[in-house]
């Protein structure tokens, strides 16, 4: 019982250390970074479409400078 208790504590510490490593890795890497757009994996992928062509979207209407990019998720 005690061994199991300390076992899960060790497991949770590993997870927290990994989370800290993720943040630290990101912060350490931020010098000289060129931001890039990351599309979350459950989103429609960027790039051309079979019917929509190069844009990857059917533009039903457009005027001025507004683009579909303005409406994409703000997530990296």
């Amino acid at each position: 019982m005690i061994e199991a208790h300390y076992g899960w504590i060790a497991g949770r510490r590993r997870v927290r250390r990994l989370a800290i490593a993720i943040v630290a890795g990101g912060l350490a890497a931020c010098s000289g970074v060129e931001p890039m757009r990351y599309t979350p994996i459950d989103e429609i992928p960027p790039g051309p479409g079979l019917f929509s062509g190069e844009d990857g979207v059917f533009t039903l209407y457009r005027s001025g400078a507004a683009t579909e990019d303005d409406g994409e998720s703000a997530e990296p």
Partner: protein
Amino acid sequence: MNATTAFPKAPPRLRRRMLVAATLPFAAAFGLAEQGLTAEVSSGNDDISLTLSGQVNRGILYVDDGTETAVLNVDNDNSSTRVRFVGVGRYDEEISAGTVFEVQFESNSTADIKIDGSSPGESDSFTQRKLELYFDHARFGRIWLGQGDTASNGSSEVDLSGTDVVGYSGIADMAGGIEFGGFGVGPQINEVFSNFDGLSRDDRIRYDTPNFGGFSLAASYADSRKSDVAIRFAGDIGAGLKLAGAVAYAINGNVDSQINGSLSLLHDSGFNITGAAGVQDLQLGATNPNRDPTFWYAKLGYIWSGGIGDTAFAIDYAAAEEVEDTVAASGDEFTSYGVFVVQNVDKIATELYLGARNHELDRVGQNFDDVFAVLGGARVKF
């Protein structure tokens, strides 16, 4: 007796009316179609955009639960079949507003289908993904309102391997409804594994900061006292390396809180590694609050660029403990490993994919056979 003499002829005037009635809808339709070809959708406003996009993602799923096998036609829940409308209107150079309307239509979702081919609870219609609006300021960030991604959604799923359409940290999306021990016997895969991916999508209000050197911060508040915060990063960090990652903290009402994250590194050579982990703290309110749910995930991949499109390969391993909210789940140890390949066919905007995954559950006092699954299919962006 031929068909023309089977029924008495209608009077000439009635026949003319019938002819008009029968052809009117077609005439109207052709008229509208002709109008559509010659006249644009119009608006009285300037600086606006309205677009339509979508995808179809279908596959064949083979499953073996140790008792029986099945071959099932499925919709791949890793990235479901859907359609999306995005509207944007710009107020000035810095301020814009927009709407997102995105719905999915899954027939036999890989996340739910059982080995007998049934999909309990499946909707025979569109289901909501995003029904939201936003206001954006270039220097102050963006506020979202409506059904959409909470701040922490996707924070366990950052993945640059190019194989996510068939395998990623959300491994229960591949064959989640299959039960250990045979049909109707043990728990489903999606009951004993979770990647604790934040608070998913929900009716919420959300704020995103602008991007600072690849970093952004988000926070949201959803119904039932759910709230979360997440920090994200995505950038080219030099030395031929691209890095993306996220860490999130979420409170889910009075029941639990969790911390989770993921990180993915891609080298120009094509080699890539991905990791994810999460832990939940349970409070009173859970059926079994004496559990300590955790998960972790690791993936190694390679992307070969050339030919008809990128070819991506990957292997992965995942483990989770005490995820299911039942007394029996205390001491649960779930593990899974898989191998995946994705072939992009750029010319037809298609990804062809094939993946195999083994699922193992160790439960105190019970002995389950492994569940083995193979998923092959195609995602076509239209």
